[in-house]
């Protein structure tokens, strides 16, 4: 996985009825945009280290133009 600050990571739920989880990347600690990342979890102020697995996908942040 490659990501930059501002990107979001979506983690799919593992159980029936379990919602997907979402977090925002605050820091990139790996080389060339690789993990681990410091993330802030959706709808909370809590931050943690994150080591993405096969259940995670990155949504790249796009700056608005103009």
């Amino acid at each position: 996985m490659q990501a930059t600050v501002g990107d979001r990571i979506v983690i799919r739920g593992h159980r029936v009825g379990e919602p997907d989880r979402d977090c925002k990347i605050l820091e990139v600690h790996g080389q060339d945009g690789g993990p681990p990342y410091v993330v802030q979890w959706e709808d909370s102020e809590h931050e943690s280290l994150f080591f993405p697995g096969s259940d995670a996908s990155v949504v790249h942040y796009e700056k608005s133009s103009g």
Partner: protein
Amino acid sequence: MRTIDGVRRSGVGIAPDRTITEAAKIMEVAAVGSLAVVDGEELVGIVTDRDLVRRGLAARLSPEARVDSVMSTPVVTIDAAADLHGAFTLFRTHAVRRVAVVRDGRFVGMITIDDLLIDLAADLADLARPVTAEVLFGHHDAPVPAVG
């Protein structure tokens, strides 16, 4: 199969000087039952939801107690490139439910008994299907060719 290929879930980490309350909140929002305790780049322990209950809540620790006061250490680890069956041996010999996966000594994920059981159950179901089908629907013999 390599161990890293058997890891189904992303890993979540926390610094050792964070509080057990923060650890609990992170487990809740991240929907995980354990956190890798990482000091800089070094894996120094694992804290589980069970650790928070038994060593934190039951021991009447302050909600501000540090994570490293309740974590399990040393950590049982396996290299990401090692054969997955090596993890089976670690689960048996160490009587743990989770093993930390490392690459070049750094934490990259967690492999759990639950994940392995789910994969094994799927494989067993695939093997059982033709057997149950034979019991339920009978054996289909190829027609015997006519002779003469």
